[in-house]
């Protein structure tokens, strides 16, 4: 049967269009009752429903009660097409969760295509809103199911949060309850109650606070169109959770500042919001105050912006949030605060992420949950509630336990770390896989070549090898080869293992743990180019002149046998030992020579050497001993390997861009905007150093100049400058060449760049391998490989994953730092790297540790007045009474582990030298 749907649509230009669409009704649609997709006898018992019953869910139940729905006891649920479409439209995270439930056959969720079923379709009535129509469709489908089930003596139960819908349903003779009422009467699962989201009732009404009403979406849209409101993603400051900004290109400075609880108006970090710009007199300046509630939970800065301190010069466009366009709430890790009385059910939850406000939850398990890391989801934020309200999702384990803390930081950074699924493992070859004859014939046999790998000690995922041969053909040319593990041979497109790797994007290295992108069999055996047998490789082979000019480049799939898996130190020793004259050693010497030429040429071109961009703190997982910064010696061999990897990446980038100009996966590093360097330039000026930051080359030269010893300048300053310079940089990103025109890599001063050399631990490299293989005829293309939109989508995910991996790594270092300092009290030399209005940030080179010393608190951590502080921004200087603290000043700080607040353990820094009365701490005896 055919019906047509007619709808009126307003186009962008304001025209009203009448759109007619066909709508076919069918009599062959499966209702799932006779298949194994639903149980014949649903088991879940409920006091309200005497019979066996199936559940039909309304959209709002799915949107709000996902945590209940995910509970294993909720089974035999019918999801209507109407509902599924609404969910998809309203919230993509919830839709994703629902999709994964639908894929799980144990959950017995069934999708019924009700709108195309002749028995459950209905036409829109006159003047009926689409919401009402959807509700009616849901009721009709429920009715249909009750009728089908009546002869089996079973029932269909509609769960809805909408009172009106519920009442209508009951009126029509259906069994309908609100989700809350139903869940309260479920037999045998009391834990479900905690997971229930309370959307309609406020847990706590606080009359002292009343947030402005949010405007309706339609009002927001028209406001945005006329330019009255600006739309953007709210980015809450890391230092001050009551201050955020949105990016907005059409105002001065490109950002709008939003300050204070009421102006933020219940928006949470990363929500898409609409902002109304305040008039210019009301603009304010970002506060330089570090607001840290974890220290003093009671003390919060008053909401009103301190007007008198705002000088005109510092004012930036400010505004207030008038409405939320899209929430991006996710489950948050954190802890319960220990203030409530155990008997009460209402408690406050503090998220681990500082930019998220505390959340009010209801739980009956306070006694067990206190002292544990838990996950909580936000449900809503009523007008009269100071904090958003949410519900308990699950517990992760004891606070302070290393496993729990690792779990927290993986969850917080969205690193998927579950063991690989069976589907993924099924894609693996057997552990004693050997290279088949047929594969050998297809590849170039390089097993006789003097190939070796050079890596850090203890490395098990070796993805690159090198070789060097003097061609002796009279021209003085040499052959250099870079051999990369051929991961794309094992990971075929569109297999589960490929999907998983695509989603993970990168291997994440924590201090004591590695979360692999591909299963260990590949990463540390079949694809790892160890010296214990033949391996498949993807080779990039150059013919080079002795002055490191590339004469010819070629790529091939090959089979290699590494002659030696060396560490950097071993390789260095071989090079330095004149007695050694074997192939490998000679090769290493040749490579080393070429690498030096390559490096100097690169630096001449303006590549930046930000010597130690990450000051990293390495902790031995067994002994908790730090291996400090200075002892990490850089040998020639380190940069030798790096040089050739860079060269291979550049060669490959050029090649794939030429072969696939529309869909090459490349990596670019945009040059930072000049204003990013202001902090660096100001800081350098205090030491009479002039930095030129106009180009990367100028910057490299001025940083080198700063290295020359000058009177009165500490030698470590050049390193500090490099660290600060690193922070001025933008992130390098992957992108699809068909969608951008600017390919430059600022940091490497390369016109084009990509990642080819680490396919074991980066998905981007796998994509590059596939493109390269297709271009040399060693493999075939497939549609996703050539679809630029698809590639860009993957690139965006990779960029996100890489960033998250980096953050997770830092968080892991911070965690281990805490473990290391537990129960210790150490005085250590440090340098001031930033000066703020009420604090200085200190870097302690020995531990690679950075922390904040508050100047408005005494040594016990109690707040003090800021009256004696005098902050001079221009000179990066702050006066505490008569003592000045300036950037790059050497100070001595006392490092301790603060466990006083068991829920938020932290590293505490206290100033020892210079001695500030009232603030500084007494030196420890050690």
């Amino acid at each position, binding site marked *: 049967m055919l019906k047509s749907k007619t709808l009126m649509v307003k186009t962008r230009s304001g025209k009203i269009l009448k759109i007619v669409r066909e709508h076919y009704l069918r009599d062959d649609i499966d209702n799932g009752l006779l298949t194994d997709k639903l149980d014949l006898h649903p088991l879940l018992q409920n006091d309200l429903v005497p019979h066996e019953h199936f559940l039909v869910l309304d959209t709002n139940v799915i949107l709000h009660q996902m945590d209940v729905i995910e509970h294993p006891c909720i089974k035999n649920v019918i999801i209507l097409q109407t509902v599924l479409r609404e969910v998809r439209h309203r919230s993509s995270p919830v839709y994703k969760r629902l999709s994964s439930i639908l894929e799980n056959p144990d959950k017995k969720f069934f999708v019924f*295509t009700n709108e195309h079923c002749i028995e459950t379709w209905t036409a829109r009535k006159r003047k009926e809103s689409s919401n009402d129509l959807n509700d009616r469709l849901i009721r009709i489908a429920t009715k249909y199911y009750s009728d089908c089930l009546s002869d089996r003596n079973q029932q269909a139960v509609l769960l809805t949060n909408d009172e009106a819908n519920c009442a209508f349903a009951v009126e029509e003779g259906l069994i309908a309850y609100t989700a809350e009422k139903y869940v309260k009467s479920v037999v045998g699962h009391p834990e479900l109650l905690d997971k229930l989201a309370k959307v309609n009732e406020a847990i706590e009404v606080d009359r002292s606070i009343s947030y402005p009403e949010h405007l309706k979406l339609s009002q927001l849209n028209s406001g945005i169109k006329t330019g009255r409101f600006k739309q953007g993603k709210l980015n809450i400051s890391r230092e001050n959770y009551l201050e955020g900004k949105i990016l907005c290109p059409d105002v001065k400075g490109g950002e709008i500042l939003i300050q204070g609880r009421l102006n933020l108006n219940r928006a949470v970090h990363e929500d898409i919001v609409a902002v109304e710009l305040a008039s210019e007199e009301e603009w304010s300046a970002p506060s330089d105050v570090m607001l840290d509630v974890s220290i003093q939970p009671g003390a919060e800065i008053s909401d009103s912006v301190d007007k008198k301190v705002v000088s005109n010069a510092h004012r930036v466009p400010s505004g207030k949030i008038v409405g939320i366009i899209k929430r991006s709430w996710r489950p948050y890790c954190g802890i319960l605060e220990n203030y409530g009385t155990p008997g009460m059910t209402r408690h406050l939850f503090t998220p681990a992420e500082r930019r998220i406000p505390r959340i009010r939850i209801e739980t009956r398990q306070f006694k067990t949950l206190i002292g544990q890391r838990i996950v909580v989801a936000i449900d809503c934020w009523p007008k009269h509630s100071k904090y958003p309200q949410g519900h308990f999702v699950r517990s992760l384990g004891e606070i302070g336990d290393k496993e729990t803390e690792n779990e927290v930081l993986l969850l917080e950074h969205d690193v998927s770390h579950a063991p690989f699924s069976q589907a993924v493992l099924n894609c693996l070859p057997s552990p004693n896989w050997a290279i088949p004859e047929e594969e050998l014939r297809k590849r170039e046999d390089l097993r006789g070549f003097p190939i070796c790998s050079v890596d850090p000690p203890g490395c098990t995922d070796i993805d690159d090898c090198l070789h060097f041969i003097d061609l002796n053909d009279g021209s003085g040319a040499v052959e250099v080869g870079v051999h990369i593990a051929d991961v794309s041979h094992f990971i075929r497109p569109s297999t589960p293992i490929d999907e998983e790797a695509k989603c993970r994007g990168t291997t994440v290295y924590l201090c004591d743990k590695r979360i692999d992108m591909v299963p260990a069999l590949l990463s540390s055996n079949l694809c790892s180019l160890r010296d214990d047998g033949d391996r498949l490789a993807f080779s990039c082979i150059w013919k080079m002149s002795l002055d490191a000019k590339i004469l010819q480049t070629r790529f091939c799939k090959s089979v290699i046998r590494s002659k030696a898996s060396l560490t950097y130190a071993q390789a260095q020793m071989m090079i330095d030992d004149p007695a050694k004259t074997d192939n490998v050693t000679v090769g290493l010497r040749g490579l080393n020579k070429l690498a030096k030429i390559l490096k100097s040429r690169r630096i001449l071109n303006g590549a930046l050497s930000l010597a130690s961009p990450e000051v990293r703190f390495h902790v031995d997982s067994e002994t908790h001993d730090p291996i400090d910064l200075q002892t990490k010696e850089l040998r020639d061999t380190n940069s030798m390997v790096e040089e050739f990897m860079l060269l291979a990446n550049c060669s490959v980038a050029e090649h794939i861009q030429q072969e696939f100009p529309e869909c090459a996966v490349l990596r670019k590093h945009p040059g930072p905007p000049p204003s990013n360097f202001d902090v660096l330039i100001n800081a350098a000026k205090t030491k009479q150093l002039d930095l030129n930051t106009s180009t990367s080359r100028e910057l490299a030269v001025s940083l080198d100049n700063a290295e020359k010893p000058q009177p009165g300048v500490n030698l470590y300053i050049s390193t500090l400058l490099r660290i600060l310079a690193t922070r001025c940089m933008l992130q390098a990103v992957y992108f699809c060449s068909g969608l951008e025109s600017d390919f430059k890599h600022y940091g490497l001063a390369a016109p084009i760049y990509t990642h080819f050399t680490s396919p074991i631990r980066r998905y981007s490299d796998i994509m590059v391998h596939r493109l390269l293989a297709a271009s040399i005829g060693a493999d075939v293309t497939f549609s996703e490989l050539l679809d630029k939109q698809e590639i860009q989508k993957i690139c965006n995910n990779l960029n996100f994953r890489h960033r998250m991996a980096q953050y997770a790594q830092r968080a892991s270092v911070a965690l281990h730092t805490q473990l290391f300092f537990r129960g210790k009290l150490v005085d250590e030399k440090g340098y001031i790297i930033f000066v703020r209005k009420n604090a200085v940030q200190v870097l302690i080179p020995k531990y690679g540790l950075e922390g904040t010393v508050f100047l408005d608190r005494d040594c016990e951590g109690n707040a003090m007045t800021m009256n004696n502080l005098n902050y001079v921004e221009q000179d990066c200087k702050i006066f505490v009474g008569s003592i000045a603290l300036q950037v790059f000043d050497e100070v001595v700080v006392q490092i301790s582990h603060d466990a006083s607040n068991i829920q938020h353990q932290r590293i505490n820094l206290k100033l020892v030298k210079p001695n500030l009365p009232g603030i500084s701490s007494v030196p420890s005896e050690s």
Partner: protein
Amino acid sequence: MAGLELLSDQGYRIDGRKPDELRRIRCKLGVFTQADGSAYIEQGNTKVLAAIYGPREADQNMRNQICHDKCFLNCEYTQATFSTAERKHRSRGDRKGQDMSTHIKQTFEATIQTSLYPRSQIDIYLQVLQADGSNYCACINAASLALIDAGIAMKDYVCACSASLTKGKPVIDINHVEESSDCAELSVAILPKLGQIVYSELNGRLHANELPDVIDAVVRGCKDLFVVMDRTVREHLEETATTFTHS
């Protein structure tokens, strides 16, 4: 989440069809008395009228196209102002219309036994009354029926069908919503009994590996169409035969 889901996980398309199902087809032969042959076809909401004039002596102003050993085809494709959601006046010689005319002309040059009609002309007029995707295919099918109605010798029926690929599955007879998503669109016209493809056109990109599947699907679609068209022709014939005998 933005964008429409063209094919649900349950295997239904936006309008409720399965991937390999055609839209409802209604067709009729002999809708005009003035023309030598005419037909009307509805494929879902795409509705096309076709009229055939000829074979006849070539127009004076078409002199230069006359061939001594075959007839020439004159094809005119027009789309009504009211055929799309937005009213839009299309002048007769607009680019899209001309392209379409050429394509249709080429398709029928390969099908009509032109050598039987030397030095003459056959006119094919096509008018799209309502456009809802796969316009080319509906035009070919309408013209094919009209040519049969006109009694012009052809090698075979011509049946045309379109297809696209979403979520790795070929979907046939695509409507306007599916057409305006960024998927590739393949239009194919075949001679169903001879098993020949006389025309194929691909808009957008399809990977070579996926093409065979899509072609298979679209050919199956054409054959389904053929069944309907053949039945209509036979019914029409019977009807006409009865009127003849009665009169």
